């Protein structure tokens, strides 16, 4: 039984959600990893250093740049016969590609697993995480996306896998990458940060997110947001934490001016420690907060920044 994990990478190496997907795959047996795109030398070397990876397949073709779903799925389908499980992280890339692969293999994908019970049986959250379903797959090949927040990532270093070139199948040419407008930030990625501080509608305006910055700087935190803050245009879409945004489980999550709707809780309630700052003491966010501060955020945030600065 061997699994193949589709990895995402950037200049800094293999992305943390992909390393969590490798951790999930290790529970299933031997692990091979796949990097796809062009100019893959560094990515292949980084993949080979992941502990627990036995082999790295390198699929080098310009048609695989940007991992468009149509060619990437064709590649995975071509590689599938050698594998019992195909996995990727539940990221925009994984969610885009893996269901397409599953349909081409005539299998039902197993989306966003939070635990591995055995080779056929997995736990996945449903209804915004209000239920944890244990599901057993009857399909020959398991096509899986992995909830990164539920699996401690494997380290970036420590392994020494063999690197092989993958044969490239005919790649469909029906879609074209035009451009990417990526948010630039010096901060850690939301899904990899040890501390996350998120603002909601209570922040009132995009510029008020500046109030979070000295605190984020001090704590090495990523900045997130509720859907309402994104819809209002305070911050870009990739800040959204929740059922339909990013799922995070940091050591510390600070929710500022966020009411605590089910959909938001779904994205952060597995955090180790939750702090809520809200002026409404009845706000549902206090029901999940370890530490609640009933206060106006416009006075509490500068105070918090000063308090952290002081010590």
């Amino acid at each position, binding site marked *: 039984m061997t699994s193949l994990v589709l990895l995402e990478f950037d200049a800094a190496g293999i992305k943390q959600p992909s390393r969590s997907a490798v951790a999930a795959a290790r529970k299933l047996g031997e692990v091979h990893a796949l990097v796809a795109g062009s100019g893959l030398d560094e990515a292949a070397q980084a993949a080979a250093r992941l502990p627990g990876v036995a082999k790295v397949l390198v699929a080098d073709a310009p048609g695989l740049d940007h991992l468009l779903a149509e060619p990437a799925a064709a590649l995975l389908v071509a590689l599938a016969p050698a594998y019992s499980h195909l996995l990727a992280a539940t990221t925009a890339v994984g969610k885009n590609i893996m269901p397409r692969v599953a349909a081409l293999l005539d299998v039902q994908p197993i989306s966003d697993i939070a635990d591995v019970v055995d080779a056929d049986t997995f736990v996945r959250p*449903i209804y915004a995480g209000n239920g944890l379903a244990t599901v057993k797959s009857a399909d020959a090949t398991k096509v899986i996306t992995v909830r990164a927040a539920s699996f401690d990532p494997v380290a970036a270093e420590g392994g020494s896998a063999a690197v092989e070139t993958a044969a490239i199948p005919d790649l469909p040419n029906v879609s074209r990458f035009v451009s990417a407008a990526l948010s630039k930030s010096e901060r850690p990625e939301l899904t990899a940060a040890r501390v996350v501080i998120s603002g909601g509608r209570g922040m009132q305006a995009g510029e008020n997110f500046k109030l979070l910055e000295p605190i984020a700087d001090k704590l090495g935190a990523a900045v997130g947001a509720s859907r309402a803050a994104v819809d209002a245009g305070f911050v870009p879409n990739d800040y959204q934490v929740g059922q339909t945004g990013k799922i995070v489980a940091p050591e510390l999550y600070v929710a500022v001016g966020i009411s605590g709707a089910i959909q938001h809780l779904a994205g952060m309630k597995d955090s180790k420690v939750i702090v809520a700052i809200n002026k409404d003491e009845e706000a549902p966010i206090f029901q999940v907060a370890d530490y609640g501060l009933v206060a106006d955020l416009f006075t509490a945030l500068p105070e918090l920044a000063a308090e952290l600065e002081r010590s």
Partner: protein
Amino acid sequence: MKILVPVKRVVDYNVKVRVKSDGSGMETAGVKMSMNPFDEIAIEEAVRLKEKGVASEIVAVSLGVPQCAETIRTALAMGADRGILVETDAELQPLAVAKLLKAIADKEQPTLIILGKQAIDDDMSATGQMLAALLDWPQGTFASKISIEGEQITVIREVDGGLETVTLNLPAIVTTDLRLNEPRYASLPNIMKARKKPIDKLSPADLGVDPAPRLITLKVSDPPKRKAGVKVGSVAELVAKLRNEAKVI
């Protein structure tokens, strides 16, 4: 150009659903049901394309129990032209839904199919991509803006790092993200008009599809409960607790 929009009947997003005491599933009896919010966005986008003269006909499709007809009526009241109900009491998973929708697409020959990016009950986020695969069409998932020019559609997608723009050959699949539009409320006259719009009824057998689920749910359990926390009186107390008690800063 014809647009097909699959609309799913789900538990309303405001309802907090609980696990059944026997662990066999979620307690959904008697709770408010609505159209999946992402599918409202899909219908809205189709209606806007029709208002702009880009689309000529919008067909709303729902699969499931007979009450899915109500979900289709909502779509018709928002501006869809006609409905197709694939009626079954069977549990439908994305693979079966995608196969049924493929059979409908083969008959209807739409140029564009707009689905929600995710059903808020099963949280699968799979059906659109699977339908695209079965039809051998390109896919523009998690769309926050679309524009159609000639034989192509350009989709701005919400991705983890921000936004990505792709151009796809038509026919194509689009799945909606939250920022694509703000769905309208159906007006009373349009709700009245919707009553006269036709809904065709089919069964999975009519479409030659075996909808049997491939994933068997062994049990559903409650997520871990968080223990009740405390309210702190000041920022200084908060920082002290985080430092000395929780030891996270």
